């Protein structure tokens, strides 16, 4: 199966261009079922959801609050478990892994970008970006600094290396968070409402940046959003409602 996906052309910095992505699936979800217990009530979050994401795709997940967007991202990010179904990331059956193996998978294959940035306040920008590399045995100490500088340069924050997070604006913090997600050269970056805490201008800049990185690094991006203005910028939109994919 070949899937045509729009991507940002790395030669053009001003306007995103579309390229064709490779079609091998990096994420395969099959019949995921997940529910949460709220007091005495069982609230279904995912009802037999299936989805494939191809390598290099730039995908937005949209849906109303409580539709299951975050739960879907949690499943793909191996930070939550379904009651039934299967999750395969880059050919690895996630549900067969133990907690330590999943941690290693997250560290080496998945980058996370959070709505509220989640930077460690006592660490400098460079140290925050370096954090996931410290526990990655595949990245030797000698290579860490280069990776950090490259990631910060990619997001345009190389001048903030020694700053603490609270010395940065919201947009700058999210850029640093993106740099942290990318520093480990992941195959997949998951972003849960990455623009929700940013104003409109910064939101567009962050999406531009993610598109740019998607094109240049060929990293698969999956992010959830409520912002309809961003929808036209993405190559694929997954619409989720009541725990199933509508389109």
């Amino acid at each position: 199966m070949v899937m045509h996906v729009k991507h940002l052309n790395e030669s053009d910095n001003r306007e995103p261009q579309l390229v064709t992505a490779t079609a091998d699936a990096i994420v395969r979800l099959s019949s995921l079922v997940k529910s949460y217990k709220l007091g005495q009530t069982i609230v279904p979050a995912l009802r037999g959801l299936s989805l494939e994401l191809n390598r290099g795709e730039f995908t937005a997940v949209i849906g109303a609050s409580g539709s299951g967007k975050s739960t879907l991202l949690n499943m793909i990010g191996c930070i939550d478990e379904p009651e039934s179904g299967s999750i395969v990331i880059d050919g690895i059956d996630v549900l067969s892994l133990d907690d330590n193996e999943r941690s290693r998978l997250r560290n080496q294959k998945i980058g996370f970008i959070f709505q509220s940035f989640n930077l460690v306040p006592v660490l400098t920008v460079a140290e925050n970006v370096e954090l996931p590399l410290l526990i990655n045995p595949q990245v030797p100490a000698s290579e860490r600094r280069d990776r950090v500088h490259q990631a910060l340069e990619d997001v345009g924050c190389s001048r903030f290396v020694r700053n603490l997070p609270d010395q940065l604006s919201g947009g700058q913090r999210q850029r640093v968070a993106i740099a942290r997600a990318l520093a480990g050269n992941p195959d997949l970056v998951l972003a849960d409402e990455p623009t929700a805490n940013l104003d409109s201008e910064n939101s567009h800049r962050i999406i531009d940046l993610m598109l740019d990185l998607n094109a240049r690094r060929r990293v698969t991006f999956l992010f959830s959003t409520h912002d309809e203005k961003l929808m036209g910028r993405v190559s694929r939109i997954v619409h989720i409602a009541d725990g199933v994919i509508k389109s």
Partner: protein
Amino acid sequence: MNFQLLMIAARNLSRNRRRNIATGSALGLGFAGLLAITGFHEQIEHNLRAYTVYGMRTGHIVVYKHDGLEKFETNPKEFSLDEKDLQALKRITAEIPEIEYDGAQIVGPGLVSNGCQSMPFYATGIDPELDRRLQQHPYNLRWNAGLSGLKKGRELWAYSADEQVIMLSSGLAALVGKNVPRDPESNAISTDPIDCAAADVKDKLAADSLVQLAGYGWNGMMTGGDAAVTGVFATPNPYLDSAAARLPLSQLQKLYGTRGATSYSIWLKDEDKISEVIATLNSKLATAGLNVDVYPWNYPELSAHYDGMSKFALTINVFIATIIAFVVALSVSNSATMTIIERAREIGMMRSLGFTRRWIRVLFVVEIACIALIALASGAAFGFFLISGLNAVGLPLDLPGVIAGLKVKMVINPETISRSGVAIFLLAIASGLYAVWRVAKNNIAYLLTGTHR
């Protein structure tokens, strides 16, 4: 272990400074408290040990005739060490270089009379020269000075061997009205008959050091003799205070008509070698064919006063130390739990970046370890000044069952500090580990949304 990660953990100390200071204060004060309580326990142990080993003349090791410890009182002749036993013991102990002093002792009951009134006594007979060495031993002088010792007059060793002398405990001396010990220079012993009905009889009795002794010889015959009261000694044991007496070994042997002894005591240069010396001694005694039993000084039936007091003190001190430990553990656990709950999203973030639960535990434990180390250093300094201050004030220490006045003199030594420090450090780590373990085991998604349990 990644040094950079450990440094990050240490740097987290700058967050929540007030809480970290509160946690550190709880640890530091807990440490100071433990230092004080262990120092106090050390003091009581030293007091009781010195009183038992040197003050009571028990020795570090005691040799009895086989079954003599239990049966000597009822049948002294059969269950005493005879002259041959004593000679053999003298020869054997001379071969053991770890032994500092040794000698025979005899104990037994009798009557002491001032001419008008008689009181029962329980006497210890010891070689005066050995007694001098024991009472002047540095350990005895340091730890037994407030418990037992000379209150008035002179010790037995101040008199020549041929003089008939006796020392009375302060209570017994009061009972027989002999509160003025004999002055060895004047050697004033009245030979005038005493009118026990006279108004001034008390003064006359007090001015005269002479007493009459009566005993029951081991051969079954009544015996008696005169002796001059040379001194009055203190004893911490209220049961002994109204009945204890001390005489030269040869004199008490004469009263009981024997050349034997109740027991043979041994004092070591290094008390840590008690087990080693007992083993050597047992081997040599078996070779010599002596039918005797060998006991360490703290054998419960041998040193019942020490055993009871020591266990009582241990129970009280362990109880107080447990309360301190509980308060410290609760404080650290609460503080760590609050910190960890506040940083649950951060833990969730780190877990999603690939940190394992083990790594999260390590990071938080390093934070707690850093707080604990700083707190221990501060607590040690505070504890040192606190204990030094209390020791300098000289607070009275009244132990139950002990009538002699003691003063608080807590012991600070490296062993006490390291033991208490390790205990507090491990307590802090365990409390913190428990708190982080509870949070880190949560689902990462719950941690990230702050809905963890």
